[in-house]
């Protein structure tokens, strides 16, 4: 125990430093379990991977592949719609997050951006612009990472 005392002292010092070094760390809050919007984002990327995998199928006819593709497309549309409404729900939680005005603005902007990207994804799926869906998913991922960096505890 005596050997641990210096270690404990060092731990306490670093903890104090990290809390003094900036209010930025106060931005982070625990989001609890996996957030709905993160699950839906994951679901969208899995759907896209499976749809791209259809191109590798050799025994299904192109007609059968088209039928499967339309099923995946409908699932993408449904997931994008759900994500869009989940994002609106996220914005409604803003008052309970105890953020200052700048932080609220940043949070709202990022959430709105994610919602717009979800709407874009839905339109791309409805119009069968499959090539554009991958880049939209990539942009959504960047938006998620930016928001998590600012507002989510690691």
């Amino acid at each position, binding site marked *: 125990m005596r*050997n*641990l005392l*210096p*270690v404990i002292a*060092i*731990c306490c010092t*670093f903890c104090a430093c*990290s809390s003094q*070094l*900036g209010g*930025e*760390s106060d*931005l982070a809050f625990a989001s609890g379990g996996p957030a709905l919007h993160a699950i839906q984002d994951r679901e969208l990327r*899995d759907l896209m*991977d*499976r749809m*791209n*995998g259809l*191109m*590798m*199928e*050799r*025994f*299904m*006819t*192109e*007609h*059968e592949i*088209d039928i*499967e*593709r339309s*099923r995946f497309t409908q*699932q993408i549309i449904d997931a994008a719609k759900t994500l869009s409404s989940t994002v609106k729900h996220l914005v409604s939680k803003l008052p309970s997050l105890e953020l200052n005005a700048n932080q609220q603005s*940043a949070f709202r902007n990022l959430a709105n951006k994610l919602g717009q990207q979800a709407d874009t994804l839905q339109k791309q799926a409805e119009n*069968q612009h*499959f090539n554009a869906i991958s880049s939209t998913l990539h942009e959504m991922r960047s938006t998620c990472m*930016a928001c998590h*960096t*600012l507002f989510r505890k*690691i």
Partner: protein
Amino acid sequence: MTLGNPARISIPVLLLFCVNVRAEQDMQALVKELVTQVKELKEQVAHSNARIAELEQTIKSDGGENSSSASINVRKPQTLSADSSMLPNDGDAKPVVTAGDIKGTIKVPGTDTSIGIGGFVKLDTLFSSSGMAQDTYGNQRLEVAEIPIGGLTPGNDDQISLHAKESRFWFKSYTPSQWGDINTYLELDFYGDPKLGTYIPRLRHAYGTFGRLLAGQTWTTFLNSQALADTLDNGNVGAILSLRKPQIRWTQPFTIESTPMEWQFALEAPLSRVWDAANDRVSTTRSSHYPDLVARLNLLPTWGNLSLSMLGRQAQYTPAAVNRGKSVWGGAVNLSGKVNTFDADNLRFMLAYGNAMGRYGPSSFFADAAVDDNGNMELIPIYAGMLAYQHWWDKAWRSTFAYGISHADLPAYAAAANRHMQTVHANLLWNPISQATIGVEYIYGMRELGDGQNGELHRVQFSTRFNF
């Protein structure tokens, strides 16, 4: 002061913690700076837009020569159409080709029909532990029925063969109509002749759909084509019930608890394969009084698909021993599907049992029925199973491991007929881009006759496939 073991472990952990805290603060500072820059850019854009509006207002208010020169620079399509001397005559205008209503198609100008063509060019290089007979398909794909039994004939051990017969061409069309969508589909490969160097086009699929009705040649309704394993080998996994047949099929979708489902009913072309003890071989009869009857229930949840197929058919044959037509009714069931596991991985399986299933098995392996020396005909019960797992290492690399097994309960007099088979496929495939596949596959096949004699094959296949 000396530091004990807990301290030796704790200090590096502390340092790592401090590094992580610092990295997070750096990231937050960077994001804050970016937010500031974006704000400044937005202000600049707003200022620029205001300036543009100001200039446009100035141009408009000038009027006269300035406004006519501005209209030349920003003339609209309506201006062009007003000057008929600059436009071609309406009668000469050619309709523009536009993208079709389904992926990979274009619209036929002046119609509602979308058409598409495609296919792939595939080269297969096969290194086999034993050669099959000359000019047989067994040297071009896995044909378990051709695996030599007993010892290898001299000079026929190990063989290399290269061919491009699996290269494929397809054509599809789509036309919406008030009665239901009309689709057509044609697909060819070049397996029309068993000689290795001879490429004859062979029709694989030729069918049309009109709403829920399908008519033409395609995969038998008894088969769930999504359960077929992703192998390089065109013979695919032993035990796979793979057969394309002329048929008429009706598909009726419905939902239960918001899960999409389908009933499918089909009448399919009959054909009987019968083992005749009189000559110890399988004979094929195409004449029959009844088509094959197939019913299938499909479950289509978001996690994959499952199907349960039921088959009823009549095997018919005229034994030489009695010179009188014999027929017997039999059936089979097939439970198969594809289940998504994690990420893009999936599990594919097929379990089938029946006493009239021989013809639906791997090509030319089992018979539907057997006839003894007295002309008595009996159906042959067959069990078949297949399991395949596809794993995606990342978006460009994937592997499939597949195992198949089939077994027939043969009567004692059919000792020379095929009784049992097993196959294994394991591959590694690479798609540097989605249209190109390069891969290598290990294939193992074994077969056993009714009298216990057996043979096996080891093969390594290297293939390239380029889609268009």
